[in-house]
């Protein structure tokens, strides 16, 4: 079976784009990815497009915009893992031998689709009693503070770090550093989380071009990065209450990816993880096995997760700093990994980066730990 390689990536500036839409943003990202890959666009055989709230056939609108309609394309919805799922589907189409060149796109024009707090689907029993995503993570934060003695200031430092990373990313939603005090004094959303503990409502898109071994050989692209693993799992149905301060779903998805890639967590040089909230980054990196349980808050305080630290987490600025256009997020994480591994990350370049990991986790459904979790491992 062939391995899969990323030969080109592109993404729009993340932020508020009142004069644009999801297809227009997706087209910009796709054209940049094609140009970056150097491939003739006629060689692209299929496409997958991840988005959440953009309605019917957004992927087709993107292809039409760039003159590429006529390809097999599937739109992919997996909540905040939609873009990552598009990458995985593209890689499966190549591994299956169906295609040699596939485009994966993730896009979202979120500012026109909702305001305020994201909620589960209205059909869900938890939505019916007032669940919001910030509240769910706030409850997990409170429990984590109770169990592991994490301080409110330690939690705020996650946002401070990611905003600092974002300040070095010209495509990030937020370009200004913030302080712990500013996090603690920002508007309360769901105690103990304030607005600076939450990822913003962001518009943006990202795209990547994936190819097979034989196509890579034909192209001779020296900047290619290998997609060593792309795993996806849905949460299990709980038969008893489980801890909300650990993520078995993240662990399971990571272990599948480590096995496929032939690595362990100790081999990961840096990671983009799904920090939709400050507490989420804590839960993710511990679930991935990158830090021990209960140990991440102190590690952040010591600077271990900084660019230049022992194991940089979210060098792009993450969802908290770069922004979180739901469907765009998973592809944008892969864009960051590719740019870091190629040594093209500019001011925020991680020295000697060889193995990067991207993690997404999206959606809420009653009775399961998480809805859709993805882990991608990229190797240079």
């Amino acid at each position, binding site marked *: 079976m062939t391995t899969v390689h990323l030969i080109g990536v592109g993404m729009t500036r993340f932020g508020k784009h009142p004069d644009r839409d999801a297809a227009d943003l997706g087209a910009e990202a796709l054209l940049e990815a094609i140009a970056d890959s150097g491939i003739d666009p006629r060689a692209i055989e299929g496409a997958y497009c991840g988005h959440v709230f953009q309605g019917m056939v957004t992927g087709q609108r993107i292809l039409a915009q760039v003159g590429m309609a006529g390809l097999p394309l599937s739109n992919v919805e997996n909540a905040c893992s939609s873009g990552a799922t598009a990458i995985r589907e593209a890689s499966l189409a190549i591994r299956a031998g169906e295609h040699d060149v596939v485009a994966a796109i993730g896009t979202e024009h979120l500012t026109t689709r909702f305001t*305020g707090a994201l909620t589960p689907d209205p059909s869900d029993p938890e939505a019916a009693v007032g*669940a919001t995503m910030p509240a769910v993570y*706030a409850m997990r934060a409170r429990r984590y503070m109770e169990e592991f003695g994490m301080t409110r200031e330690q939690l705020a430092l996650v946002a401070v770090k990611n905003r600092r990373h974002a300040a070095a990313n010209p495509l990030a939603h937020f370009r200004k550093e913030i302080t712990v005090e500013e996090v603690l004094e920002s508007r309360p959303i*769901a105690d103990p989380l304030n607005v600076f503990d939450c990822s913003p409502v962001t518009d943006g898109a990202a795209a990547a071009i994936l190819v097979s071994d034989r196509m890579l050989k034909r192209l001779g692209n020296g900047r290619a990065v290998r997609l060593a693993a792309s795993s996806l799992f849905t949460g299990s149905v709980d038969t008893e209450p489980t801890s909300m301060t650990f993520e078995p779903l993240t662990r399971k998805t990571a272990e599948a990816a480590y096995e496929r890639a032939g690595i362990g967590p100790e081999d990961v040089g840096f990671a983009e993880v799904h920090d939709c909230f400050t507490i989420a980054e804590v839960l993710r990196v511990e679930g991935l096995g990158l830090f021990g349980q209960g140990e991440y808050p102190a590690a952040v305080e010591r600077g271990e997760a900084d660019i230049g630290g022992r194991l940089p987490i979210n060098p792009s600025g993450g969802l908290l700093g770069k922004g979180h256009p739901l469907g765009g997020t998973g592809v944008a994480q892969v864009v960051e990994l590719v740019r870091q591994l190629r040594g093209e990350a500019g001011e925020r370049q991680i020295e000697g980066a060889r193995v990067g990991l991207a993690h997404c986790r999206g959606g809420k459904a009653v009775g399961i730990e998480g809805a859709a979790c993805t882990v991608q491992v990229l190797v240079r």
Partner: protein
Amino acid sequence: MTVTDQTSAPISFRPREFEVLADGTGRLLGSRCRGCGAPFFPVRAACSGCLGTDLETIRFSTTGTLYTFSVVRQSTPAFPVPYVLGYVDLPEGIRIMSQISGCEPDDVKIGMDLELAVEEFGTSPEGAPLLGYRFRPMAGRGDR
């Protein structure tokens, strides 16, 4: 067309998950697997433990303890803020998300004993009050 005379039976806001009894009390509904005994909320079509499809619908206990909570200060228009949202562990081994009422947010504590209360949860399209559930500090143990 006139609206037919409604019975005075109370209307649950989510009849598949919450039953309001004639005496005005309420019960959360779920499933128990007849094969392996695993409980589920809400009602399921099959058991995740043994994948058996022989499930019975059960009514859960109306008391529990608070696993964690948050004071929600931003929500959708359907839910005026602030309100307290929590996860309540029931004796059957089920964790239920519920609003917590009947006490000040500052008095809510992890581990506190709670009991289910039937409270209004919006209105039906015809304007009839709908009944849902919130958990409150257990009578005699909270500040009520």
